[in-house]
């Protein structure tokens, strides 16, 4: 048992175990809770009136506090996108699929979204999309409550409307 090793020790295996117990924080907690009710919350800059989704405590741009929460519609515009052709760990989606930045109507910044119910080749900047929610009773107040976004069929938006909301 205590014989010296026959081979020189070349490696040391060192496993790092760091558990975490996250809190969401007031702003994100309200945002996540609202998803259960099919509502999307943003926070409004007290100086410029810009709305941030998910809500932020202050405007990173003006540094003014965002004290007011506002509802934003569950629809918006694709500001930019990419077509994913490789599998991603933890995501079981048929390839290829489109991951997009979607600026919800009235929001100053965009959120990330999966685009479904259309061919990847048909997706374009300026395309109007809407959220498809998990059915009632199955929403838990997390980001999975929105299954994906799909095209609405409305006319495309012009770049001027979304170019500063990428």
């Amino acid at each position, binding site marked *: 048992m205590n014989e010296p090793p026959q081979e020189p020790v070349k490696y*040391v295996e060192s496993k790092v175990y760091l*558990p*975490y*117990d996250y*809190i969401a924080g*007031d*702003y*994100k907690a309200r945002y996540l809770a609202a998803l259960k009710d099919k509502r999307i919350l943003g926070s409004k800059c007290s100086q410029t009136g810009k709305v941030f989704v998910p809500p932020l405590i202050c405007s990173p741009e003006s*540094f003014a506090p965002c004290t007011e929460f506002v509802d934003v519609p569950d629809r918006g515009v694709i500001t930019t996108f990419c077509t994913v052709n490789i599998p991603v760990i933890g995501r079981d989606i048929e390839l290829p699929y489109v991951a997009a930045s979607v600026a919800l109507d009235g929001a100053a910044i965009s959120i990330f979204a999966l685009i479904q119910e259309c061919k990847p080749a048909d997706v374009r900047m300026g395309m109007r999309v809407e959220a498809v929610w998990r059915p009632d009773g199955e929403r838990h107040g997390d980001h999975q409550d929105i299954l994906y976004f799909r095209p609405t069929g409305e006319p495309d938006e012009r770049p001027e409307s979304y170019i500063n909301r990428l």
Partner: protein
Amino acid sequence: MSTLRNVAIVGFAQLPVVARDEHRISTEMLYPVVRQALADCGVERDAIDYQIAGSVDYMDGRPFGFVSALDVMGSWPPRQDLHLEMDAAFCAYYAWLRMQTGDCDSALVVGHGKTSEGEPDRVLNLQLDPYYQAPIGLDPTSSCALQASAYMARTGATDTDLAAIAARNRAAGARNSDNQVRSAASATELQKTPWAVEPLRKGYLPPVGESATCMILAAEGKAEKLCDRPVWIHGTDHRTEMQTLGARDLSRSASAKLAGEKALAMAGLSRASDADVVELYATTPVEELIVCEALGLDAKAARPVINPSGGPLCAHPIMSTGLVRMGEIFRQLSGRAGDRAVANARRGIAHAMQGHCLQQNLVWVLGTERRWS
């Protein structure tokens, strides 16, 4: 004539330290503190040239968590910024250096860290080497206990001596509403607390908590405009020593000694006891005794007053504990210390450390008057 610039602390704000803030993530804790520090100086964010943050992403487990702090530091239009994985007191040192080079005149220094979301003992274990020290499970309490044994063996200090130091801190800390522990405790009571890691008792260990802190530094010319009573930096020095615990004399702090000597020399002082008030980043009574010895202070003397804030034994917001020491000296010397004010305090010393067993030490000598004319 000195080539050094006069730089002053002109503002300091902190959140009261708590074990766990259930409602705010790190950025949500930091934002009101930055706003308050700026408001106290009567300026908007644009008035400050430079910004630097002290935090460790391992602490709250959010990759690039330090980047999210930029959103609440006022980083638009684009700013000069730096982040250190060290206590914010070391960020202040870096900002001071930048000001000495002349490339900025004012700086926002912040410290933040949600210690309650991770396990600080596991995180701080990773400061040690991965071959010999980290795998045996050394955490700050056990490395402090090794140091305590070494110190007590060399000096003959007893459990009673340790209890007396802890009791003094606890008595002082009861007056500080920013502290996590705000109850006094007698030496006798503390000596009855069980061993954490012998020879350290639970009563001799800091309550690890979380806070957010913000200090504003400014160079002469600007400092007077931001603060009615700026607290000037007279001297500072930062020294580090070996990581390997076994290669150091753990019963002493060579780096605290050297940093103290250099900082005092810069300040034109011959001894640390010329200060009226001292704040030490000592997480155990033994660390306090070792740093006092290194700086040439008597931990039992009435003057200078040591840790009027209560010190880390009453509040230990990792990443901000050192900056709070500077903040307390700022409060003491600028008439902001309320009912714990040290009478006639004109000169103070703030100490900060990082690493196991006082590996790195930073000493500030601060005063109410400008150092250089």
